């Protein structure tokens, strides 16, 4: 019944109702996620923030059909996560670039295109296009080890953008990079989002990063993993780096911190 209602809502890209996931481990069941209700709309930039163990990565992996929910419902593009995966309706960016060392950058970007059966001409067109999107034009013939960590992560974003997925799932993609590189990539990611109109779900544990990037911030807490606050950002779409010193930005960051505190994320 409500499945039908949710499917009718065309602009909803991810829709979770009472979603829960319990892992069965040797030490007994672990409640990774419980009672998650969330609606991600087309064109949203949603950040998931919280301390480790709050289930933010698990939630992203449920969307991607890398984990199966044990309670509640979730629809991705109006279908089950499994069908969404089979329809290749999302691109996933992992914490590490996970580029194949034996493939050049352009061959790495071609990997999903080869698997999905794109023609050679189409592959080349898309490689050139996505390399330009992540500012890596001219680096296509390099091998991953010849690139810096930030460039490798940009190449992995290009790989996720290469096929026609409107949803981009990013699991702490800049977590391993230094702050200067991270600032730079945040700026580029916003530009890319504005240009491509993708819907982005972004996991992070950095408050400034979440506030700077998002239209919607989902604050999460551990034991059991749950959503404690959902904040709609009031910041404009155009965001220079120094917006992070405005009172408006700081107010949102403060509310995120309060949400984390309410979920006992700062307890010992």
């Amino acid at each position, binding site marked *: 019944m409500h499945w039908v209602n949710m499917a009718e809502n065309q602009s909803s890209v991810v829709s979770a109702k009472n979603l829960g996931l319990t892992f069965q481990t040797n030490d007994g069941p672990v409640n990774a996620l419980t009672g998650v209700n969330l609606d991600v709309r087309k064109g949203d930039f949603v950040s998931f923030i919280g301390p480790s163990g709050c289930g933010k990565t698990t939630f992203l992996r449920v969307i*991607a*059909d*890398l984990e199966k929910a044990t309670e509640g419902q979730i629809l991705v593009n109006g279908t089950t996560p499994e069908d969404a*995966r*089979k329809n*290749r309706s*999302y*691109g*996933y960016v*992992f*914490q*590490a670039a*996970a580029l*194949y*060392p*034996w*493939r*050049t950058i352009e061959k790495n970007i071609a*990997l*999903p295109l*080869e*698997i*999905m059966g794109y023609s050679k001409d189409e592959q080349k067109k898309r490689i050139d296009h996505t390399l330009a999107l992540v500012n890596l034009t001219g680096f296509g013939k390099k*091998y991953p*080890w010849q690139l810096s960590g930030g460039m490798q992560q940009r190449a992995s974003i290009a790989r996720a953008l290469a096929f026609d997925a409107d949803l981009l799932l990013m699991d702490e993609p800049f977590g391993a990079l230094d702050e200067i590189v991270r600032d730079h990539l945040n700026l580029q990611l916003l530009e890319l989002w504005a240009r491509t109109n993708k819907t982005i779900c972004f996991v992070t544990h950095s408050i400034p990063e979440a506030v700077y990037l998002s239209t919607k911030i989902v604050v999460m807490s551990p034991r059991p993993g749950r959503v404690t606050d959902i904040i709609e950002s009031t910041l404009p779409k155009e965001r220079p780096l120094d917006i992070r010193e405005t009172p408006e930005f700081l107010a949102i960051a403060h509310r995120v911190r309060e949400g984390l505190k309410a979920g006992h994320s700062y307890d010992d």
Partner: protein
Amino acid sequence: MTNTLRTKIWPVLAVLVVIIAAWYAAALLMNRTLAVEEAARKGEVLTTGAMWLKAYSMDKPLLPAPHQIVTEIWNSTATMSITSKRSLVYHAWITLSATLLGFGLGTVLGIALAVGIVHNLAMDKSMMPWVIASQTIPIMAIAPMLIVVLNAIGISGLLPKALISTYLSFFPVVVGMVKGLRSPEIIQLDLMHTYYASRTQLFWKLRFPAAIPFLFASLKVGIAISLIGAIVGELPTGAVAGLGARLLSGSYYGQTIQIWAALFVSSIVAGLLVFIVGGIERLVYRMMGARPEAQA
């Protein structure tokens, strides 16, 4: 270049010089008694100098001196037609052809078993103990039986010897390839899962390329033991041809120099084979874009 000389060639040469010196000392000690006894039978008394010369130039010494072995190798390779039954080139080629056939079969068998073990749960649970058990049987015991059984069903010549090489060389390939095919990280497997890649695509685009370094490590071991297998396979055939036959006939007639010459040739051939596999490995690594200093 000078760096290569200092870091690679000098250490090897230094060890070689020590080995040769030790060898001459050992040859003198071991052959001295033999030389003195032989002289005593003829009623001669040897001076120290004459005794040394004698110890290093006997026809059937206990331990031939290095120069005697080198001379024998030279005489039985460079100075005679390679089709002659006394040419070591001829015998080496016989053994080499069995080695290469067996190695090829062993590599294919090893890869096939590894693919099965990685992809099929039943094979994963059942095969490995048998693969390991196969290597606990002494090859010297199983080789004659295999040759006899195959002869009885009409298979003789190259193939039985090659099969013994196969029996030895498939093992490192199975072990290496199972590990190699399972070497991709979870994140790389997850990535393929998000692409909804088929098992075939997963194999050719991820598992197999990831296993290449493991494959070459196994092939280097495999090619060397393939040669051993071929030589062992030649021993029970009644010493017709091959390096194994030379070893056998040498030991029948107490021709120690001939035995050592055959041993030297077999180790030279083994070294060349490993070197060639290593060369192919470097070539493949370069084609796969490996970082220059990361090459083995």
